[in-house]
């Protein structure tokens, strides 16, 4: 059962495992961190009273342990057979593949929307943000540039086109997460600071949206217009989604702008074009969500107030941040 002290314990080990993984001196330590990460995340998501939750945690365990085993094997091969530091070989491709599978990046992404569908919003937040840190940083230590560029293109295309037919909000955010992984993998290839910048802004935007959906208890698109949201929540939703899509003048434009800058410095012209056009498709399905919440008639129940929650301050805070991020993002330019 999942009471707070259990969660605290496993959460602590989760955070610690990522720190082990990214700060170890040898690849073996990295693998240990990844394993402990997996082991401590499973109790957080599994709830023995709920069959879907059990099935989700089993699927997560299977895929992630497969990736970890692969990673360990490739590390050992690299250590024993290859004595050079060349990054353009088959072993780097295999190591990158196993790390990409850990992250849920295309073409190893098939588990990701499935599992995201079975988790609650807060677990999703963990999965989409914290669980990506250690594979990304490990990726930055030994990556194969050509392979990763191909993976980036696949991420972008699958993330944008996969979300077109979804009605579940979790799966939509999963595909948008896959798309943003494409941006983040490219930023790893440029510099780790850039990745950190993109990742922090991305996780802040995801946090605002997921906390909004969590407080409204919304999991599907039809719940967007059944509920009685007041105006500021809808505005918050609008600003957050447009910000995630990378439209000016919101905060989400800034990391995308900087990454495009580095793309063009390194002369990746066609790749930039793919980045742009897939982000256009992503904006299309964000706008669909926004339309659903803004446009349709909603029911006003008079005998029950749906928003009597104790922690309205979180909604207010996230509204304030998302609205003021417009102004803040213009200040960064000057």
């Amino acid at each position, binding site marked *: 059962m999942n009471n707070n002290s259990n969660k605290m314990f496993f959460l602590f080990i989760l955070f610690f495992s990522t720190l082990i993984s990214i700060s170890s001196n040898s690849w073996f330590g990295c693998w240990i961190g990844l394993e402990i990460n997996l082991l401590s995340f499973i109790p957080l998501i599994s709830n023995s009273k709920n069959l879907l939750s059990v099935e989700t945690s089993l699927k997560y365990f299977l895929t992630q342990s497969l990736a970890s085993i692969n990673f360990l094997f490739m590390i050992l091969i690299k250590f024993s057979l290859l004595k050079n530091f060349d990054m353009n070989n088959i072993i780097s491709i295999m190591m990158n593949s196993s790390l990409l599978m850990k992250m849920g990046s295309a073409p190893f992404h098939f588990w990701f929307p499935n599992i995201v569908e079975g988790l609650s919003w807060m677990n999703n937040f963990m999965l989409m943000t914290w669980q990506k840190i250690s594979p990304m940083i490990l990726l930055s230590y030994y990556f194969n540039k050509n392979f990763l560029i191909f993976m980036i293109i696949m991420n972008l295309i699958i993330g944008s086109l996969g979300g077109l037919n979804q009605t579940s909000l979790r799966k939509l955010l999963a595909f948008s997460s896959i798309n943003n992984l494409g941006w983040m993998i490219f930023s790893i290839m440029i510099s780790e600071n850039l990745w950190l910048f993109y990742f922090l802004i991305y996780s802040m935007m995801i946090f605002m949206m997921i906390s909004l959906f969590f407080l409204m208890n919304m999991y599907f698109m039809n719940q967007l217009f059944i509920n009685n949201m007041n105006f500021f929540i809808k505005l918050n939703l609008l600003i957050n989604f447009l910000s995630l899509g990378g*439209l*000016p003048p919101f905060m989400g434009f800034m990391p995308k702008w900087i990454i*495009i800058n580095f793309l063009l410095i390194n002369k990746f012209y066609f790749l930039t074009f793919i980045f742009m056009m897939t982000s256009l498709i992503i904006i299309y399905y964000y706008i669909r969500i926004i339309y659903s919440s803004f446009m349709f008639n909603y029911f006003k129940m008079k005998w029950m107030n749906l928003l009597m929650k104790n922690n309205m301050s979180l909604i207010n805070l996230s509204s304030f941040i998302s609205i003021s991020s417009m102004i803040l993002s213009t200040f960064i330019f000057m």
Partner: protein
Amino acid sequence: MMKFLFMMIFMIPLCFMKNMFWLVQMMLFFMMFLFMNLNLNIMCFFNMSYMSYCDIISFGLILLSIWICSLMIMASESLFKLNFYFNFFLFNVIFLLIMLYLTFSVLNLLLFYFFFEASLIPTLLLIIGWGYQPERIQAGMYLLFYTLFGSLPLLMGIIYIFNDLNTMTIYFLKFFNMNMYLLYISMIFAFLVKMPMYFVHLWLPKAHVEAPVSGSMILAGIMLKLGGYGLLRVMIFLQEVNLKLNYIWIIISLVGGLFISMKCFCQVDMKSLIAYSSVAHMSMVIGGIMVMNYWGFIGSYILMISHGLCSSGMFCLANINYERLHSRSLYINSGMMNFMPSMSLWWFLLLSSNMAAPPSLNLLGEISLINSLVSWSNISMILLMMISFFSAGYSLYLYSYIQHGKYFQGLYSFYVWFISWVFIIIFALISFKYDNFKGWFYFYLILNKK
């Protein structure tokens, strides 16, 4: 320049206070008169500061945008009377004005792009939030996606320029030559979509028709001119490619203008007719900019300003009819002279300006454009003749259909006159007179330059 920005920013809290609707509108008028009195120097940039500047094009367009925003609020009086989220509407208008003001006045090309894109968001909110029909969903999508599809390559082009030249100051761009075909396409395409040029014009009839009166006024008045302004700024450093490739855009826009003018005769919706006439006028503007002579430059600028005033006035009038008869269809809006004879004066003045009859400013613009396009090639005489003829044709068609004849027998009752419209009309008249004077000043300017 900063003072206007601060004035607009501090009007935002004013939008949310009680009973401040007319105060905001009056303050916008006040700001317009203040702005008009800036020192105006034709041949250079003036009022330069660290990040903003003003030259003659920026000045005219900022003035036009403040003017149209204040008229927008006046035209949307029904929102205030019906208490339909007018606080947020005012915030939208002021936010849009800030974004437009910053678009026209920043020195940095990337900031220009930033505010160019940012002005789309309040327009989208205006169309979706206060539009009249369910088709506005699709209209908002078309607006957003056509414009974004064009402007994302613009972002790529701007950042490429920055990486190459290490500067983004618009003033310094004229010293460089970036003659690359791909850069040319990526920079120009965004503005051509925004203008709009013929093949990428589909968003415009939808967006104009489905927008509320304020949205239509700002779209026709200023948002199209963003494209023109961008073209005028960006073509400076692409001159050799321009000389090789501009004929494509001229031909597409002129022939397209001809087709669109003919399509105007088939329209049933008043606003749709005015929207298509906007495309036809803008096609001439694109032609004028693309020929790259001085008459074309000035002519397109004058036509942009005059078309902004004229088109938004016509949308306002169309809304006056719509508010009374609840229909925009030409079949129902006929014989209006029987009920509102004074309104027929305004229809006539604005439609005669639309067809570029003397003494309107549109005439000056069209004469300059005809001059520049014919000097580029004699064959364009045919196209220009037909575009001008058809624009006279559909303007007269619209006027005669709405005003003359017997009124629609199915009408029951409606208001005839509101007092506040008097103010719109008086101010519109002042603007025509003022711009007539400015117009003759430009004419003198052109003669001197020649």
